[in-house]
């Protein structure tokens, strides 16, 4: 059995072809040729293109995926054709398994390598797979959550010894060693969506040529229908491998690197329906395949079309609507009315039949059905989401409140950070001039609810929705909700929450662990920000590429939250905070603020690292002069028993404002957390206790800073080193004076204690009255 592998490729995808070539080299059977359909010249004589299998380049016109595949089919010589996309890849046994199955079956079957969707890029998986070394390791699942495979199919090993008294037919034996699911007979048209996907399918070349099956060369977005549907019709079965052996990499950056299905095309719906029609007409009317495919398409119209053309939620531009309706009418007229009546019901049936008859959109009925669906969703969720619906339908249509400011810090988890600093500045400088609304989660203390002109609202509650919709100004330090509607007359200030240390958004290679559409969502959310605060020039540069945010809309001001660290009365404030926390005034303070190591590095429930800093020894050697303030992830501190350390350890992990902890401490011990950017404003010593530095290597590659050269303090790997540094801080200060100076110049040059004023003046602008109390 000889395969021809067919890969269409855009010039921009050439680089990923190398990765695919390396992947194909790992196949356990190499009886194949690889046809790359690409119009960009490729010098296949170069060493990087040498492989144990022949590689050919095919050029094609027009420049569509359909034409690329058609041309490759014409030039292929293999018995079987496999369609594989340039950013996808195969597991090593894929071709051998398929070959073993094909050897026991006739040529009129369609083989399916069983797609496994993921957002994890090929190279990221290869790296992590090499680390685990486990054969059944798979990339992170990128399909629907409920469809995530929880079990692995187990094929019998080929050398398995089976009982001689129960003879097994050779076809069954092959099946046990390379198991597959068969779609045939009554089951032939079941699971049609999956069967129609071209990537990972293997079909007999002669069968394709005999039936003159071709991809659509004129539909650049949807070329597959007229090839795949008749292919299913002329084959007797689809045999899908039980094991996923075709890894389909979905694109997680639709802004910069959209896949064909993510491209922004106003004619998308019209092209989709054209594809359905060109596919459907290849089958005889009223055949099983015709009815199954038409039913599937009608269900899709029912499910997705109305929201796309409704007045409020529509995504199809008005000027495209006539073409869409014309195409849709033509398509619907291919389908017998009886089948439509059998498939659709109620309002939906009436809408579709009306379009089929008149070619016009019954807009009111469409709007009503969308409206009813939203309402139904709320009813099914027992009222959950009704506040959000009210926000979307009504609240965003209420008049704005021109003197109302909405603040949110860390998603309502506490009263802190730059929103707090801006709020306090506004209260001091313009008392009684504005209405302030703070978003807080239930029960969060302290909160500013008792301050004058201040309202506290619960996140996602009704009052929250009301003020989110009607406040003229919004000051938020993380991201606003995905469904947030930016009204044109409002002003949104993103304060963000720190100088970036780890790669952000568009600088991240792999966001498989986050929402796969994270980059796209972030992009759209950040377009709603009127201004973004940058703490330093470094942040300006990073935000420009990491957020793709225009520099002219950034406020180059420093962080309002850090004004406290430069306040003229900071010593008095520090004393007051110490007293509030019950820390003796004569004791110096070590602040220990390690970062949270997530599950990739330590299993959940493994808190060993908290013991790495030898608290008992710190107490023994420094307890007369110092106390230790702990600021860690709540998950760790909840499990950390500090009772044995008496009055030496103060666990302040839930203290609302970390800036106040900076202010009272004399030295900071941290590791890979970005807290040191702010702490350095105080010019006090910083130690980096990085006992797992080697283990953290792969993470450090995703940092903007070089931890070896850019830091204002030493990297310490043992408790001995930490203790030695703490015993002689003056020497440490001398040693790191230059590095500290450079670091401060780079990251804290704008921090002069007046960032809040600069931000307020720039952001609120004309809305500010004359100051009532001018702050110094």
């Amino acid at each position, binding site marked *: 059995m000889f395969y021809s592998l067919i890969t269409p490729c855009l010039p921009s995808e050439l680089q990923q072809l190398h990765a695919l070539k390396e992947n194909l080299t790992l196949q356990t059977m190499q009886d194949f040729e690889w046809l790359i359909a690409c119009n960009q010249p490729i010098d296949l004589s170069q060493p990087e293109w040498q492989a144990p299998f022949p590689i050919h380049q095919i050029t094609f016109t027009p420049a569509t995926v359909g034409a690329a595949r058609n041309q490759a089919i014409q030039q292929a010589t293999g018995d079987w054709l496999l369609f594989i996309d340039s950013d996808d890849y195969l597991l090593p046994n894929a071709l051998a398994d398929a070959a073993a199955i094909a050897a026991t079956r006739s040529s009129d079957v369609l083989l399916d390598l069983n797609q496994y969707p993921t957002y994890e890029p090929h190279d990221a998986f290869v790296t992590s797979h090499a680390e685990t070394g*486990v*054969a*059944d390791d798979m990339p992170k699942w990128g399909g629907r959550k409920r469809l995530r495979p*929880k*079990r*692995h*199919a*187990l*094929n*019998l*090993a080929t050398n*398995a*010894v*089976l*009982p*001689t008294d*129960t003879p*097994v*037919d050779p*076809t*069954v034996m092959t*099946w*046990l060693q390379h*198991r*597959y*699911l*068969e779609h*045939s*007979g009554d*089951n032939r048209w079941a699971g049609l969506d999956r069967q129609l996907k071209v990537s990972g399918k293997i079909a007999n070349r002669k069968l394709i040529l005999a039936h003159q099956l071709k991809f659509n060369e004129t539909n650049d977005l949807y070329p597959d229908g007229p090839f795949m549907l008749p292919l299913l019709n002329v084959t007797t079965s689809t045999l899908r491998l*039980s094991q996923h052996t075709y890894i389909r990499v979905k694109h997680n950056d639709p802004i910069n690197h959209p896949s064909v299905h993510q491209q922004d095309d106003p004619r998308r719906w019209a092209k989709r329906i054209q594809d359905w029609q060109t596919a459907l007409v290849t089958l005889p009317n009223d055949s099983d395949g015709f009815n199954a495919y038409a039913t599937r398409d009608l269900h899709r119209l029912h499910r997705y079309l109305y929201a796309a053309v409704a007045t409020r939620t529509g995504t199809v531009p008005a000027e495209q609507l006539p073409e869409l309706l014309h195409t849709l009418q033509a398509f619907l007229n291919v389908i017998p009315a009886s089948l439509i009546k059998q498939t659709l019901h109620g309002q939906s049936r009436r809408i579709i039949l009306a379009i089929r008859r008149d070619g016009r959109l019954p807009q009111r009925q469409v709007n009503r059905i969308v409206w009813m669906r939203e309402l139904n969703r709320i009813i099914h969720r027992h009222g959950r989401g009704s506040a959000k619906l009210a926000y979307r339908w009504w609240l965003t249509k209420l008049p704005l409140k021109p003197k109302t400011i909405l603040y949110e810090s860390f998603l309502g988890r506490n009263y802190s950070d730059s929103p707090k600093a801006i709020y306090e500045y506004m209260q001091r400088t313009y008392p009684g001039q504005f209405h302030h609304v703070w978003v807080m989660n239930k029960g969060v203390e302290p909160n500013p609810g008792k301050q004058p002109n201040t309202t506290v609202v619960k996140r996602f509650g009704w009052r929250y929705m009301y003020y989110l919709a009607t406040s003229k100004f919004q000051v938020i330090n993380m991201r606003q909700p995905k469904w947030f509607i930016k009204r044109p007359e409002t002003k949104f200030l993103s304060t963000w929450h720190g100088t970036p240390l780890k790669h952000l958004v568009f600088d991240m290679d792999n966001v498989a662990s986050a929402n796969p559409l994270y980059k796209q969502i972030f992009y759209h959310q950040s377009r709603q920000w009127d201004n973004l605060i940058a703490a330093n020039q470094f942040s300006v540069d990073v935000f420009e590429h990491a957020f793709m945010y225009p520099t002219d809309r950034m406020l180059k001001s420093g962080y309002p939250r850090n004004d406290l660290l430069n306040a003229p009365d900071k010593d008095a404030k520090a004393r007051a905070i110490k007293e509030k926390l019950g820390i003796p005034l004569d004791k110096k303070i070590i602040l220990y603020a390690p970062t949270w190591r997530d599950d990739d590095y330590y*299993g959940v*429930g*493994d808190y060993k690292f908290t013991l790495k800093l030898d608290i008992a020894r710190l107490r023994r050697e420094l307890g007369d002069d110092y106390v230790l303030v702990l600021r860690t992830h709540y998950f760790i501190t909840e*499990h950390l028993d500090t009772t044995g350390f008496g009055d030496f350890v103060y666990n302040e992990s839930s203290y609302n404002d970390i800036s106040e902890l900076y202010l009272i401490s004399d030295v900071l011990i941290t590791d890979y957390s970005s807290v040191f950017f702010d702490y350095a404003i105080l010019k006090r010593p910083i130690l980096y206790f990085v006992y797992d530095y080697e283990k953290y290597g792969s993470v450090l590659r995703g940092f903007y800073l070089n931890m070896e050269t850019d830091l204002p303090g030493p990297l310490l790997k043992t408790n001995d080193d930490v203790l030695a540094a703490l015993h002689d801080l003056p020497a440490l200060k001398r040693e790191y004076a230059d590095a500290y100076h450079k670091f401060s110049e780079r990251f804290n040059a704008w921090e002069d204690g007046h960032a809040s004023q600069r931000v307020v003046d720039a952001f609120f602008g004309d809305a500010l009255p004359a100051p009532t109390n001018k702050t110094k």
Partner: protein
Amino acid sequence: MNLLINIVPNETISWDRLLQLSAAIEAQRFAGVVTNLQLPANQELTGAHQAKLAALHVTVQEQPQLPTTADGYVLNLRETTGLLPGALAQWQSVTSQHANTPVSLATFDNQLPLDEQINDYLTAHANNGLLRTYQQLSDSDNVWPQLWGLQNYSVQTNLKNFRLLSQRLRPTGVLLPVSQLSPDYPVVSLAQNLQLLSQQTEIIRLHVPTIQNGSWSRDTPLAWFNQLQLGQRVTLNAEWEPVFEKYYRSQLKRLLKHADENQLTEAQQDLLRDQLEQVPVLDAHH
């Protein structure tokens, strides 16, 4: 596959069952599979038994020789365990896919008729696509290829799941990676499984039964009680300690609840009650 199948006999050895099991293993013999009878010191073999066991390549050692390769496994079985056809082939397949991880085996009950259990199992999976595919390929009603065709496994990380502890802590019916055995505990013991589990991040579950096994708490309640007590001596971290305490309590209560059918004497029941009173009531949040 480097596997030691270690047969741990009941107090009174059932020779017929032992020979039956040994023959079943021999019939599925793989290169690298060694069978041992872990005969207690107070028991002796007759010459006839010795000859029969030798013919089936069964060694007899109280301290079995563990596989020396890094990827070796030990599987403890009782002589009353039934080995289903194709079992070794399936174990080999799963361990080659996911080496050095313990494998908990699904079982049929050895006190119920096997045929009925298999029929029930296949009926329950009648709508499974794989079973339907098998039926398209073959009209044979041979049940074994159908069970092999349904076989699958999962990699489970919820190690402290209370409901699943019994199947993971039973001393027989779990493939244990040799590299992770502790010399501090007997090879066949709840304690061994417990220490091993508490060091792991995952365990494999082979979902379609490959053996027919009994329950320790039902078949040998006193032995199970002893196993539980030995388990108490395992040094566990703060996360695992309450998990095992909770399990220990529940197992003692279960033994007491079924005291009559387990034929426990009054004295034995008192002992269980004493133990129960000594265990602090902890709430493991798992």
